[in-house]
């Protein structure tokens, strides 16, 4: 505090005590009250429910008005480790999110670079408006659109093809297919459809952050490169890409932290015929907990997921601090 070169040393500014400051800010506590109430009820109170992960707790016990039975201890986690559906869900979560993450990065970066090359301001505006549009549609709408354009027909046997969707109609017309395929019930095709749906909806939106990074590159760099005789391609490779590398990394680790969260896009598109490739941890939790009413076991699955997420977020935070000097939360 004391600075010897400062002539105001003798002026002692007494900092008000905590009590005085609390009184001064009394109205602010009142203003924070609604925020705190919602926060505590809907976010902190559920955290107490984590204890059910160490219990057997099923719906029939609620109707009998007996609470959860904690004698099982870590039993739910032992059951988890032996459960084939859980292993499948865990694997699918990782496979779907990581492949989607890589596709997202590649598509958005490439498209952002190409948008950046559009010279015509109007053209650029129209392209951006159209590419951002699907982001604002809900997952239900996106899945509905895909179900309609991919539908094979009304009949599973393929006999009646009166409701054949757009994509099957094209493939039939071109002669690639003899009979329409039901893409969404095929384990081979489902993940591909899911990746395409995700890219259709989010690629354009994903370019925004790269475009912001691109617009902040100094034009002097390009002028200097031009004088040095670097062509357009070399300029892209030696100036543009290194300039946005930081942004690419940051977006990548931010999304890596969210790898376990994949849910709604799967939930609206999957069906019981493709559980083997589409069931992710969150959908599995939902089916066990809400549909099957096995609260103890499903809380354990949820906790397992949350802990992995927490580790991923912390790791991302550390990496983020290294790269750009501040964390992600």
């Amino acid at each position: 505090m004391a600075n010897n070169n400062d002539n105001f040393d003798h002026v002692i500014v007494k900092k008000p005590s905590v009590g005085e400051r609390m009184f001064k800010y009394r109205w602010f506590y009142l203003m924070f009250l609604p925020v705190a109430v919602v926060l505590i009820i809907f976010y902190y109170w559920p955290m107490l429910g984590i204890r059910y992960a160490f219990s057997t707790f099923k719906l029939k016990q609620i109707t009998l008005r007996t609470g959860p039975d904690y004698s099982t201890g870590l039993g739910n986690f032992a059951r988890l480790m032996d459960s084939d559906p859980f292993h499948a869900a865990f694997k699918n979560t990782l496979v779907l999110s990581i492949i989607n993450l890589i596709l997202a990065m590649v598509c958005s970066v490439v498209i952002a670079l190409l948008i950046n090359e559009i010279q015509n301001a109007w053209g650029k505006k129209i392209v951006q408006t159209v590419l951002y549009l699907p982001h604002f549609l809900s997952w239900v709408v996106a899945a509905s659109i895909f179900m309609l354009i991919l539908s094979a027909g009304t009949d599973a046997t393929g006999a009646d093809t009166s409701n054949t969707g757009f994509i099957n109609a094209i493939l039939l017309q071109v002669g690639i297919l003899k009979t329409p395929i039901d893409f969404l019930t095929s384990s081979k095709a489902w993940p591909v459809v899911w990746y395409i749906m995700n890219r259709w909806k989010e690629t354009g939106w994903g370019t925004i952050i790269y475009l912001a990074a691109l617009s902040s590159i100094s034009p002097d760099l390009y002028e200097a490169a031009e004088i040095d005789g670097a062509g357009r391609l070399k300029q892209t490779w030696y100036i543009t890409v290194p300039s946005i590398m930081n942004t690419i990394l940051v977006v990548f680790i931010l999304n890596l932290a969210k790898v376990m969260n994949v849910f709604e896009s799967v939930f609206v598109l999957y069906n019981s015929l493709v559980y083997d490739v589409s069931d992710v941890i969150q959908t599995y939790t939902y089916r066990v907990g809400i549909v099957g009413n096995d609260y103890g076991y499903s809380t354990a699955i949820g906790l397992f997921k949350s802990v992995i997420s927490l580790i991923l977020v912390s790791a991302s935070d550390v990496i983020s601090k290294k790269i750009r000097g501040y964390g992600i939360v």
Partner: protein
Amino acid sequence: MKKKFNLINPQYAPRSWFVVFNTLFFIFLMLAMIVPIVKIFCDSMVNETVYGLKLLPMTVDKETGKQIWFNTIAYKRIITDPALYWPFVISVYTTLMTTFLGLLISTLGAYVLLQKDMPGVKIFSYMLLFTMIFNGGLIPTFLVMKNLGLLDSLWAVMLPMSMNVYNLVLMRSFFEGIPYSLFEAAEIDGCTPMGIFIKIVLPLSKAALASIGLFFAVAAWSEYFHYVMYIKSANKYNFQYKLRDLFQDKQEASEGVDINVNTLKSAAVVVSIVPFMFIYPFCQKYFMTGVTMGAVKE
């Protein structure tokens, strides 16, 4: 520096060819984005059994050979059938309510977080941020709703959605742009904290209110899973839920009137995106402000 467009002259040709391919690429990409939506729009106005490659909302009557454009039978069904229009009303109601509550909570929270000297403000902000990285999970949250008696109540959907930490933090970054001297001046003039909030902070943050309000509105309009979790009565489902229902249950959709199932499904998709399509062209800049703001956070 403007380059000449010339496909033959070796000095300009590579760049010119690139421009040609780039343009073609983006035309293709825009078609890929738009054609699925256009196709659904057309199918919703064609009430026949074969859609195939049709990309015009037109059918030819087999007997008279007359062209029928824009068949609106499916839309008539939606606006006359309570099972289909009531969810739309619920959607409108929950969207308006969630947007209002969301803005209330974000502005209040953000304004309090601005008070650096206030005892406990650090704890509040950590409490908020912690929920971004950890939560109780699906089942414990469900059980809390159950204990509160909120199952089958629209509050179970609206209240959790109105507390969005990301939007609150975004709102705070907007508020930080307001010069601090304005607050001091108002305080000296005897303005109460609530007065400063209503007379200075809110009027100066119209753009922020518009863009964060739009975030809340789009999220509330698109919400589906909360309804699956918490709502049991048919008269409380929103339009997204109803839309999903149509796709899962074939019988209900086709019963009664002779509308092809897929025509009705397509029309329902169109109805659920139309309100957004109306506001999107006018509000795009507000959506953008929010995102770039979030991108340059801190």
